[in-house]
């Protein structure tokens, strides 16, 4: 893929991914059409003759939209292009995208894979199933590449030409090289992934249950809840759990949300997710603070929207901390003074 190519991507993406596609890659001549992840017809309609990739997140940002990987993979393959999914929120323990038809997977290893919020890194996995030689759409793999000794990647490797080129070009030209110490820390994290993910999910379920019953909470968006739009899909794709990152709406305005966050002592106020420690962030006053009320509403972000990443602590301690925060959030400014 290069200048003149096109990507169809889910609109429910991590901000950094949206930025890469919408701003950075556009400067290099690669256009992206963003489509609602739930709408297969929109994915189909967005495919153009120059489309070379479909891309989505297994659990989308911020509403935890569950990607129907099988359906989107079918659309990709009908158009002879691969499907890449970001599986950061689900990890290989909760979901194996290759089993559902994805061709490539990537993770921010900084999150659950590393698991301790100490190490920055990423993982790109080639499932070995996409046949670049089945069409003439991918000369990057089927024609000699002068930039690497005339290598024809699809001849060099029958099943992993993408991996070969990603390593040669990505490492050498773009510098996406992990430090050995970071690699070791991430590998060490992965050794305990199943233990941690079970605990992350169990804690999350308890916290969700608590929040649902609390009068200061207007709503909780978690795919395991029956009122989540992707509940049925989550039951099918995510039987081990829908992850440990979710949002809820606090009753009240931005000030109430601020009081909530400032009253928490166990949750860390951080934009990261997937840490052993529980994390909290208030999008309206942090990641989206430049937006006014109308813009926030247009983006579907309520003034009282809170995002939590549930860690590995004792869930009762987490619930106690949230209780304190919720109580503080509902006090008026006057009564606080």
């Amino acid at each position, binding site marked *: 893929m290069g200048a003149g190519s096109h990507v169809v991507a889910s609109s429910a993406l991590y901000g950094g991914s949206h930025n890469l596609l919408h701003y950075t890659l556009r400067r290099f001549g690669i256009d992206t059409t963003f489509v609602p992840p739930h709408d297969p017809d929109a994915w189909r309609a967005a495919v153009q003759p120059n489309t070379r990739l479909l891309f989505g997140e297994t659990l989308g940002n911020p509403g935890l939209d569950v990607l129907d990987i099988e359906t989107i993979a079918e659309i990709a393959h009908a158009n002879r292009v691969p499907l890449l999914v970001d599986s950061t929120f689900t990890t290989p323990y909760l979901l194996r995208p290759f089993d559902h038809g994805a061709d490539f997977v990537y993770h921010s290893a900084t999150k659950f894979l590393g698991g301790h919020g100490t190490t920055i890194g990423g993982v790109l996995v080639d499932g070995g*199933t996409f*046949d670049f*030689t089945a069409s003439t759409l991918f000369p990057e793999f089927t024609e000699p590449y002068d930039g690497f000794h005339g290598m024809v990647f699809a001849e*060099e490797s029958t*099943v*992993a030409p993408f991996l070969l080129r990603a390593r040669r070009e990505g490492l050498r030209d773009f510098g996406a090289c992990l430090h050995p110490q970071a690699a070791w820390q991430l590998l060490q994290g992965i050794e305990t992934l199943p233990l941690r993910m079970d605990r992350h999910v169990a804690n999350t379920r308890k916290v969700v249950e608590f929040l649902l019953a609390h009068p200061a909470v207007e709503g909780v968006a978690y795919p395991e809840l029956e009122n989540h739009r992707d509940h049925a899909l989550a039951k099918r794709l995510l039987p081990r759990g829908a992850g440990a990152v979710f949002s809820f709406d606090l009753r009240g305005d931005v000030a109430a949300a601020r009081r909530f966050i400032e009253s928490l002592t166990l949750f860390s106020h951080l934009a990261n997710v997937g840490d052993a420690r529980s994390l909290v962030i208030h999008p309206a006053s942090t990641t989206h603070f430049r937006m006014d009320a109308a813009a926030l509403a247009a983006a579907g972000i309520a003034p009282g929207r809170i995002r939590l990443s549930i860690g590995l602590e004792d869930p009762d301690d987490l619930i106690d901390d949230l209780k304190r925060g919720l109580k503080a959030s509902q006090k008026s400014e006057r009564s606080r003074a």
Partner: protein
Amino acid sequence: MMLKAGGAPAYAYTGGHAFDSERPVAVFVHGAQHDHSVWALQTRYFAHHGLSVLAVDLPGHGRSAGPAKRSIAELADWVIALLDAANVQRAMLVGHSMGSLIALDTAARYPSRVSRLSLLATAFPMTVSDALLDAARDREPDAIDMVNQWSHSSIAAKPSSPGPGFWLHGSNQRLMERMAVRGEPQLFHTDFSACNEYADGLERAAALQCPVQILTGKRDAMTPPRASRALSDAMKHAGVQVETVMLDAGHALMSEQPDGTLAALFGFANRSA
């Protein structure tokens, strides 16, 4: 590089270097349900260090047209047809597993065309159990799973993974699955039947006229080192020059011990006769 062997399109990977029939030529022959890419870690070095490489896709495998050949002898004839097509008079032959039988048969029946013979993970008889033959015929995905497991030793897994960034089990599984999709129906069964029915091994071994190298994997569960002994004994008895190299690897020598395999092959290729 696409050629025509016996009138049908035939593919041979040339190691990322333009093929030159004037240089010494090494022909690499893969095993059952595989293609040229199993030699990726050795052939590129050969091609960039003074030899010309033809790493073939056998008929019905990878990029070479089918139908797949049913017997080792037919496959040996096909190798000669490929050499003719590439205008190669004489070459070193390297074969892995089923490919080792093809290389052996070719070298014995066409002695003027073969300068040296390297047999990797070889066995005679190369018996395939009825259970595995039946699985290959009726339950090919199961057969692929089993053979993939048996083809690798614990060396293929963490922490000693010899292919940084690659998962050897996963890559080999996908390669065999790709052959099932791209090749013809029952390819695995066809290949295994050819191995199982090959009866000429000892006779061919005794008829060899070129130096021979036998490379075995100490941990090979498919063709253990002792399974090559009948061949090497027959060769020695007939006065054939034989050297045996044992590597600490399973059946997948080329990926589990890429450097050791390369060193053995390249040293043999450049040894003065």
